[in-house]
């Protein structure tokens, strides 16, 4: 156990180290960070009742989770009534099979996709490509990531890790063969070029796949929120529309939806409302001017129902706004890829071990300073740092943490419970460290903490502890 544990640790740490050394990643992260934080703050300053709305949003999600089975059934009924179909997928493999099956039946050659983290969770693109289809991401960020052969590094800004220069190069490489031979470098020109390449795809696609920000039980509608309108073109133009969503995306009513929408955009991008908020409730009806011929919803469980009623249930309230990533100092230092799976930042560090087990993610709950800013900004008040701590407790109890670490900690804790002994034992290292570091004011190298002293001094301790000095002061007086 300990050997494989050690090698896994190194994986996260290696990825984090690479990320810290990657100059363009660091530039991209530095550029994004302040923007998200400031915009959110401005949006919230403009809405004094924001905290009350957050409470309401939390309560709505809690109510849904307590009655999830009922609401899922109601939702399914409504979808069927609207002429659509609901498919239930236990895990990601089953979900891919269902979706590939629908695409094959529609004899699809080209599939367009709106942004959907749940489809990333399923690894849907490779599955569809293996089935012979061409998959085109239509969200600009997802499109960039797809061209680069990468995965999203942020749940709402998939290409946040890319600099404009890198995007310029990518577009030039992939768009030149299509006749766009000019090398465009400005933001707007890049967006326009992508638009015009994608327009062609929208019109020729056979199937459109989107995610869903919410599913409304009372009407059977799926709701998508975007700033590019690509989701609408993906939903409406192709013959078949497939919605993919986790089972926790349900809200009871349109009124509840309104509450959640009020916190979502403000928390995510600092907008009062996203540019496009669209509700779709099924295939084209007789007399409709547009809309797909067939409408399918694939609902993914993949471990979510296991969390119901347990100590991590609060995590299912997540509306994927990304605020916790934007306010996390660790995410801000290394970006999303270092986390090793589709979900990153605080929400990823809580969720990944829950859905995938600790196997690949032993480090995630530990690589956190517990500063609590994520918990403070979360629009549905998920106590993220507390949940990370629960993971640590579980790791400790299952003896998954490093043996040496446990031994040192155990010894220290044993001593700490015996203050008088502790005070005696601590006197010696104190003297030694003081001797070596006192002159400079700090130690530049400390055995056992050479990592710390790699990037900063370790300030020299006192020659005699307070407790010792206090005792002698008392004796003197």
């Amino acid at each position, binding site marked *: 156990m300990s050997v494989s544990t050690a090698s896994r640790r190194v994986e996260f740490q290696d990825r*984090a*180290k690479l990320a*810290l050394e990657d100059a363009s990643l660091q530039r991209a992260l530095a550029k994004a960070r*302040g923007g998200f*934080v400031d915009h959110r703050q401005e949006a919230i300053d403009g809405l004094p009742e924001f905290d009350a709305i957050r409470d309401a949003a939390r309560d709505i999600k809690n109510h849904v989770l307590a009655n999830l089975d009922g609401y899922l059934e109601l939702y399914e009924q409504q979808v069927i009534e609207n002429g659509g179909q609901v498919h239930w997928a236990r895990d990601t493999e089953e979900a891919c099979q269902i979706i590939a099956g629908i695409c094959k039946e529609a004899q699809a050659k080209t599939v367009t996709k709106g942004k959907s983290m749940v489809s990333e969770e399923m690894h849907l693109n490779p599955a569809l490509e293996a089935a012979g289809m061409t998959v085109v991401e239509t969200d600009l960020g997802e499109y960039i990531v797809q061209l680069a052969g990468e995965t999203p590094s942020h749940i709402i800004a998939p290409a946040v890790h890319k600099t404009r220069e890198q995007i310029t190069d990518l577009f030039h490489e992939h768009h030149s063969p299509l006749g766009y031979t000019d090398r465009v470098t400005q933001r707007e020109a890049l967006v326009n070029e992508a638009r015009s390449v994608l327009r062609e795809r929208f019109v020729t696609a056979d199937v459109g796949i989107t995610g869903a920000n919410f599913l409304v039980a009372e009407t059977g509608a799926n709701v998508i929120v975007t700033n590019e309108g690509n989701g609408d073109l993906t939903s409406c133009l192709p013959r078949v529309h497939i919605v993919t969503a986790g089972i926790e995306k349900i809200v009871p009513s349109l009124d509840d939806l309104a509450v959640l929408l009020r916190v979502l955009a403000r928390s995510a991008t600092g907008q009062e409302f996203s540019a496009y908020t669209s509700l779709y409730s099924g295939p084209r009806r007789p007399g409709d001017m547009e809309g797909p011929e067939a409408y399918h919803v694939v609902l993914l469980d993949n471990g979510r129902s296991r969390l119901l009623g347990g100590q991590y249930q609060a995590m299912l309230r997540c509306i994927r706004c990304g605020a916790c990533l934007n306010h996390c*100092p*660790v995410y801000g*230092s*290394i970006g999303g890829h270092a986390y090793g799976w589709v979900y990153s930042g605080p929400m990823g560090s809580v969720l990944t071990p829950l859905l995938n087990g600790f196997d690949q993610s032993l480090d995630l709950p*530990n*690589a*956190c*300073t*517990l*500063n*609590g*800013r994520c918990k403070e900004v979360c629009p549905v008040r998920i106590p993220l740092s507390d949940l990370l701590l629960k993971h640590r*407790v*579980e*790791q*400790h*109890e299952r003896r998954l943490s490093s043996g040496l*670490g*446990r031994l040192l*900690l*155990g010894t*220290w*804790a044993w*001593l*700490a*419970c015996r*203050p*008088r002994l*502790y*005070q005696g034992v601590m006197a010696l290292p*104190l003297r030694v460290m003081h001797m070596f570091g*006192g*002159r*400079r*004011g*700090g130690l*530049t190298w400390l055995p056992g903490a050479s*990592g*710390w002293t*790699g*990037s*900063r*001094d*370790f*300030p*020299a*301790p*006192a020659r*005699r*502890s*307070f*407790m010792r*000095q*206090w*005792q002698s002061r008392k004796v003197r007086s």
Partner: protein
Amino acid sequence: MFVTCLADLMRPQVAFAAVALLERAGCRIRVPREQSCCGQPALNSGDRASTINIAKGVIRAFSSDDYVVVPSGSCADTLINKYPELFRHDVKWAGRAQNLADKTFELTTFLVEQLGVELEQVSYPGVCAYHDSCSGLRELAIHQQPRALLQQVEGLSLRELEDGSACCGFGGLFSVKYPDLSGRIVSDKCGQIAQTEADTVLGGDLGCLLNIAGRLRREGSDLKVFHVAEVLAGMTDGPAIGEAESEDTA
């Protein structure tokens, strides 16, 4: 008074400053010998059993006192918020933990909110940036208290950091387990401190201050770092945190 392990071992002057401030305000101070650490390293490593043992010792040690004052936001948070949570299902200890929590205060909060202290003549001629430590700020709403006290210090002016509520990257054992990450975060923090053009950094938690001071020293910066209690008590003549000892004080 609960000294905290870092003040005890790393910077006794912080505890002496806290004692001085409290005594000047008319408090009688008792420092029970039966104390070492609040248990955070164990708590944050997921070792509940050890934390519970340590917590019981702390609860016992202070059972006869009227108030428990702590010169650290994060250790105060442990006593105030984390202990009651640890013993929530323990009929025997839940009440005792809550009792300790109810009478425990972080130092600046105690001085401002319980004592309404007016400082004796004290001066510090400097431009200071204040670092709000995370647990104190978010769990105990410590923000205005130290500022209110520092306003009474003659010659001192305060500067706010641009993203003041951002973490300094200390995180206790985090800084030892993930030193590269921690190093990056603290160097960002030091960059923001430099932007304020302050000559001194103050804060209420030694962990963060040791981290920041260590990084500033490595960068070759000559900014001084003090715990807020040291400034309030007028104990700033000796070397600042992480600063070399001058010949006569060694």
